[in-house]
């Protein structure tokens, strides 16, 4: 499903070259639940951004769903992100002027899904995350846990293959954090491939497979 071959990504920071990813070879199967752990600066987010096609590799190849993504155009990459990948961020990234329902509908709106179908899918997503009574609230009227649930609903409303969560509990209290992880795990149970970046060991241990990273390398 996800296959990285000798993937490298370097950044220029001042005069120094920093290896975000250093010759990483990795394979993740469909439906897996993987947590990526490591200290800050170890390349966790770089790996996630590369898998999410927000970032391009300098060297190596990345196959998603059997397709080499390194040679695709900007337009094709956007299409893959739209159809196959869902993102959940630490700081939610909800658009403050839009209601919860409108935020969830955003990827469908961008993809040009018809109005009726969009409403139906947004309502389903709201219901499954028990947000129905919050549909017309704006983000500033929601609690942190609710905001992250809205963000998760937005990520899965397009029915992606992969869900990429970058420190989804980082801005939440413990109880809300556990609740969010429960939701993500439930989604994984339904078949979605879940990649979770965290530096919270307790949460990370819950995954079937744990990838430890250090200085851009995957530790064996």
């Amino acid at each position, binding site marked *: 499903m996800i296959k990285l071959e000798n993937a490298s990504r370097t950044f220029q920071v001042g005069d120094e070259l920093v290896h975000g990813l250093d010759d990483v070879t990795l394979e993740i199967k469909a439906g897996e639940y993987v947590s990526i752990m490591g200290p800050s600066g170890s390349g966790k987010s770089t790996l996630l*951004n590369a898998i*999410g096609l*927000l*970032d391009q590799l300098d060297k190596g190849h990345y196959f998603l769903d059997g397709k080499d993504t390194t040679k695709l155009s*900007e*337009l094709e990459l*956007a*299409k*893959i*992100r*739209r*159809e196959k*990948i869902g*993102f959940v*961020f630490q700081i939610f*990234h909800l*658009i*403050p*002027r*839009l209601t919860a329902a*409108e935020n969830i509908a*955003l*990827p469908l*709106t*961008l*993809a*040009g899904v018809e*109005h009726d179908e969009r409403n139906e899918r947004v309502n389903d997503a709201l219901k499954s995350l028990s947000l129905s009574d919050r549909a017309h609230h704006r983000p500033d009227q929601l609690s942190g846990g609710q905001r992250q649930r809205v963000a998760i609903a*937005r990520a899965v409303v397009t029915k992606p293959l992969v869900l990429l969560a970058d420190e989804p509990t980082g801005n939440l209290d413990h109880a809300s954090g556990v609740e969010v992880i429960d939701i993500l795990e439930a989604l994984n149970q339904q078949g979605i491939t879940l990649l979770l970046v965290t530096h919270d060991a307790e949460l990370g241990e819950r995954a079937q497979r744990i990838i430890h990273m250090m200085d851009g390398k995957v530790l064996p």
Partner: protein
Amino acid sequence: MYLNDVIQFAFKAMYGARTRTYLMLLAMAIGVASVILLTSLGEGARLYVTQQFSSLGTNLLIVLPGRSETTGGMPPMTGETPRDLTLQDVMALQRSYHIKEVAPIVVGAAPVSYRQMEREVMITGTTASLFSVRELHMASGQFLPEQEMTRASPVCVLGRTLQTELFGNASPLGKWVRVGGYRCRVIGVLEEEGVALGMDLSDSLLMPAASAQTLFNINSVFRILVVARSQEVMDKARQDIIDIIRARHEGEDDITVLSQDALLSTFDRILTALTYSLGGIAAVSLLVAGIMIMNVMLVAAAQRTAEIGLLKALGAPRRQIILLFLTESACLSMIGALLGLIFGLGGNQVLQLYFPDFPFQAPDWALWAAVGIALFTGLLFGLLPARHAANLNPVLALSGR
């Protein structure tokens, strides 16, 4: 993405930043409104002058005493005065084959009274032919009688305003009014006529030219209005006038002959140029509004960096982000332009109320140009911020950098 979704997105973004939206709309509206108002002013001046001249009638030549020198240089030291035009000159002009009608005009001011009512008005001395030369219409009674030009007779025709002032609603026909030291019988009242070349016939008293000359104790004629037989013989008629008067004035070219067309086209050119330059000045304010849109959209793109990163993560390609931002600036400039149209045309209406004689009318091209330039600058100056937004690196944008 559906068009109405794009527009909705733009409107929500505009509503999300209301203060900046209102300010930008105001800037755009002022730009468009000033184009409309300033070009209306220029166009109004043009229409006003055109009306003034065209109410003189066609194929008209105006003969003035004195030669307007255009050669420059010192004025003659001898203090020579041009020979006056006289009624005999006028009669001589009638003999030209190319001239259809001739009307002398003698003017002066004198008090006109009827019983206790008195009014100082302009007295116009002329002949029956003025009626057709100036294309006048009678409200009641008849115009000055056809008679020998040099014969005075105690009759007069009143302008509409003068009639109302002296007689109110009563009919003045057959009444005797006192004009200066003379008395004359009212035989007709003119219908309301426009002001032409500063001659407001509605507040004037018309009498035979010879009577007016007696009244003011002069022998001269202020102007001679000449109607050529047709448009084609205008030049011949003009030459005839010059030849006849030269022969009568001992070989001196001491008159000026103006044609309505020449005057009209000169004024038309000047005032059209004025309109364009006023429009150009106003267009600068539209340009400023456009640059303001660019400025504000750049700030908006900077403020919404994280949002742009999110849109990219959600699978919006570059061109979609450009579309979203351009739609926003297009909506801003379009609504601004519409507001400007309303302000501008409304302003025209208000000005028209205060200055009813002056036609405030924005030329059609100015409306299209104002709205067109508004949209064009909105899109042009929206393009840079939109491209800027679309080229952001999604990873950096998401982290707010």
